[in-house]
C-alpha cells in the first residue's frame, strides 16, 4: 500500500483521544476490516464479495479519508445492489465502523435522508414491525374479533372438514381440465423470432446468405415467426374464514397448476401474506396440504385484504411481478375491515403485470353483484372478473358444486 496513504490512515483513524474504544476496535489494518465488513454484509444477504472489497480498497487512497461521508458513500455505491438494502446497510455501517476512533459523526449527519424517503422508510419499517408482531403472535388480530377463534388450530383445520383426504381420481380429472386451461392461459407471442418455413417476416440475413449459392438471386426466402412465450402465473389465495368452503377445491386447482407448469408462484393471504410455492412442490397433494397447515398461522382467520395487498406489494411485487406475469387473485372480496387501500394497491399491481384476474367463488351465485366495498374498489383495475368454475368448466357452475 502507498506509504502516504498509510500515514493519512494513521491520522484519520487515530483512536487516541477518544474514550470509547469499542471491543471491536480495528487493529489499523483497513483491508482486513474491509473484508470483515463485507463478510458481515454477506451474512445478511448482501452481494458483497472479495472483488467488491478490493475495488473499495483500490479507490480509497483517492478520496479524502477525513470525510466520513465520502468514505460511507464509496462503500455504499460498491456494496449495495438494490434499494431494499439501503436501510440495512446504514445500520450495519454505523455499528461496524463506529469502532474506528475518528468516527465522531452521529448517524444523523452521515445518513442525511430527504424527508420523503425517511417517510417511506418509516412506513415500511412500521409495516414490517406490525408484520413481525403478527408472526410472533398469529392469533392477536383474530382474538380481537368477536368470533370463536379459540377453536382454531392448524391441526384441527387439517383434520377437520376442510382438508379431508383428496383421492387420486379426483385429482386426475382436475388435472385434465387444468391442462386445457393452462394451454390457453399460459402463452402469448413473444418478441423474439425463430427461423422456419412459415412466418410473417422474411429473415433477410439468412435469405442473403442462402442466395450466394445462386449467384445472388433470392430463389428461396427464409422466414421467421414469433416464438411463443410462457407467462408466469402468480396466485394469491384468500384463506380467511369466509373462504373455508371453497378452500379444498381451490387448493386442488392450485396444486394441479403447480405440478403442470413450472412457472407458477403461490401466496396465501388473510391477515398477513405468505409465500407458499415450496409447499405445493411436494410430491403428493396431501403432504402439500399438511405443510401448508403448519406454515400458515393465519389460516381461517379474519380478512384484511387492503393490508395484505400492501404487504404483498412491499415484500414480493418487485421480485415476482413483471410484464409477463398473469396475476390471479382468488378471493370472495369480503373484508373484515374497511380499507381504501385495496384499489390503490391493486392499481400498483396492475401497473406491473400483463393481466390481472380476480376469481371470485361468489361470481356464479345467482343475483350476485360485486358490491362489497373492497370488491367494488377493485373492479376498475381488473382485466377479468370470473369464477374458477366458469374458467374450468366453461359454464356457470352450481353453487353446490363448490360446497
Amino acid at each position: 500500500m502507498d506509504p502516504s496513504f498509510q500515514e493519512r490512515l494513521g491520522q484519520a483513524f487515530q483512536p487516541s483521544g477518544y474514550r470509547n474504544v469499542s471491543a471491536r476496535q480495528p487493529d489499523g489494518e483497513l483491508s482486513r476490516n474491509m473484508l470483515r465488513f463485507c463478510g458481515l454484509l454477506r451474512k445478511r444477504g448482501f452481494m458483497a464479495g472479495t472483488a467488491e472489497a478490493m475495488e473499495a480498497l483500490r479507490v480509497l487512497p483517492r478520496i479524502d479519508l477525513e470525510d466520513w461521508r465520502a468514505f460511507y458513500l464509496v462503500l455504499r455505491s460498491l456494496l449495495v445492489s438494490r434499494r431494499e438494502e439501503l436501510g440495512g446497510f446504514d445500520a450495519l455501517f454505523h455499528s461496524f465502523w463506529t469502532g474506528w476512533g475518528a468516527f465522531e459523526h452521529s448517524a444523523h449527519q452521515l445518513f442525511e435522508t430527504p424527508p420523503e424517503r425517511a417517510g417511506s422508510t418509516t412506513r415500511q419499517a412500521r409495516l414490517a414491525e406490525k408484520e413481525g408482531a403478527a408472526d410472533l403472535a398469529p392469533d392477536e388480530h383474530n382474538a380481537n374479533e368477536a368470533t370463536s377463534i379459540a377453536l382454531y388450530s392448524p391441526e384441527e383445520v387439517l383434520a377437520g372438514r376442510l382438508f379431508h383426504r383428496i383421492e387420486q381420481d379426483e385429482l386426475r380429472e382436475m388435472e385434465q381440465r387444468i391442462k386445457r386451461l393452462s394451454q390457453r392461459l399460459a402463452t402469448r407471442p413473444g418478441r423474439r423470432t425463430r427461423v422456419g418455413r412459415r412466418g410473417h417476416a422474411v429473415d433477410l440475413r439468412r435469405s442473403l446468405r442462402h442466395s450466394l449459392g445462386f449467384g445472388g438471386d433470392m430463389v428461396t426466402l427464409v422466414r421467421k415467426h414469433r416464438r411463443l412465450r410462457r407467462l408466469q402465473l402468480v396466485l394469491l389465495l384468500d384463506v380467511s374464514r369466509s373462504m373455508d368452503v371453497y378452500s379444498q377445491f381451490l387448493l386442488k386447482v392450485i396444486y394441479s397448476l403447480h405440478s403442470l407448469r413450472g412457472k407458477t408462484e403461490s401466496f396465501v393471504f388473510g391477515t398477513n401474506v405468505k409465500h407458499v410455492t415450496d409447499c405445493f412442490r411436494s410430491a403428493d397433494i396431501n403432504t402439500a396440504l399438511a405443510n401448508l397447515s403448519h406454515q400458515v398461522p393465519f389460516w381461517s382467520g379474519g380478512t384484511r385484504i387492503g393490508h395484505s395487498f400492501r404487504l404483498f406489494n412491499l415484500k414480493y411485487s418487485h421480485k415476482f411481478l413483471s410484464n409477463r406475469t398473469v396475476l390471479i387473485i382468488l378471493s370472495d372480496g369480503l373484508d373484515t375491515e374497511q380499507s381504501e387501500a385495496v384499489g390503490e394497491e391493486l392499481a400498483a399491481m396492475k401497473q406491473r403485470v400483463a393481466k390481472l384476474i380476480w376469481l371470485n367463488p361468489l361470481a356464479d351465485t345467482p343475483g350476485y353483484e360485486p358490491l362489497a366495498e373492497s370488491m367494488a374498489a377493485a373492479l376498475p383495475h381488473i382485466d377479468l372478473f370470473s369464477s374458477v368454475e366458469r374458467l374450468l368448466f366453461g359454464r356457470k357452475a352450481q353453487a353446490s358444486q363448490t360446497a
Partner: protein
Amino acid sequence: MIEGVHEIEVRMHENGYVSDQAVATSIFLLMELKKPILIEGHAGVGKTEVAKVLAKILGTELIRLQCYEGLDVSTALYEWNYQKQILRMRLEDGSTHSVEEKEEIIFSPQFLLKRPLLSAITSPNQSVVLLIDEVDRADEEFEAFLLEVLSDFQVSIPELGTIKATHIPYVILTSNRTRELSDALRRRCQYLWIDYPSFEKELSILELRLPGINPRLARQITAFMQRVRTKSLLKKPGVAETLDWAASLLLLHRDWLDRESVEATLGCIFKDIHDLQRMSKDRLDEVLAEVESVQNGP
C-alpha cells in the same frame, strides 16, 4: 482530468445538473474503476440526465440504447446493410470472383451497420458515455447478453471474428423497477438510488434551469410539488414535471400561484386521468392552502 468528488459536483452544476455527493461519488467511481452505474429511482427524477451531463463534462459523445421488450442483437449491436449487399452482388454479376471471394466482400466491415453497443466499444479516439436506458424493459435473454458485453467489452460477429473494445466506455444503466434485474447484472454494477429531491434541492434545480423565474413563484411551485408528492397518486410527478409546469407558468406570465392558473396547467403535473380527478376541487384547495401557510410561515 477531473480530480475528486467535489470537482465532479461543481462541474455537474456548471452544466445544469444539481448534483449531490452521492451522485458525484458514483461518477467518481465510474471514472476510477470503470464500474458501470445502475441508477434506479422514480420516473422523472433525472436518471437519464446523469449520463447526458457526464458526457458534457467529459467532452465526449453520448451513445444511447433505449431498451424495450424484444430488443435483440440486431438492434442493439449490429446489423448487415442488406440493400447495399444486394446491390454489390448485382455489380459482382459479371466479375470473375469465386463464391468465397464474393462472400468475403459483402461481409466486410463496410457493409456493417453499427448499432449503439458496437459503436460504443469501437469509438476511435476516447471512451464514450454509453447510456443503457430502462434496462428493466428488455427481457432476460437480452440482459444475459448485455452482461457478456459488459464483462469482456468484446463481441464476436460470425462473419468477421471478435471485435475488442478500443476504449472501454463509461456505462450508465437506468431502471424503473418494472422487473427485478438479475443478481449477476446488479453485481457487475455500482448501485445508485435517486430519490425525489428535498425542497432546497428542487428549488435550486428550478433556479438553475429557469434562471429568469420569479423567486416567489419558484418557492411556491416547489412547495406545491413537495406537498403533492405526499398525496397518494398513481403517477407521482417528478422533477421533469416541475420544470415543465414552471415553464408553462412562465409562458402564461404568472408571477404567483393562484387557483385559476393552477387549474389551467394541471395537465403538466398529472399524467393520469384518475390523478387529475383526485386532485380536483377540494384537494387542490387543500394543497394550495398548505402552500400558502408555508409561504407565510417563518
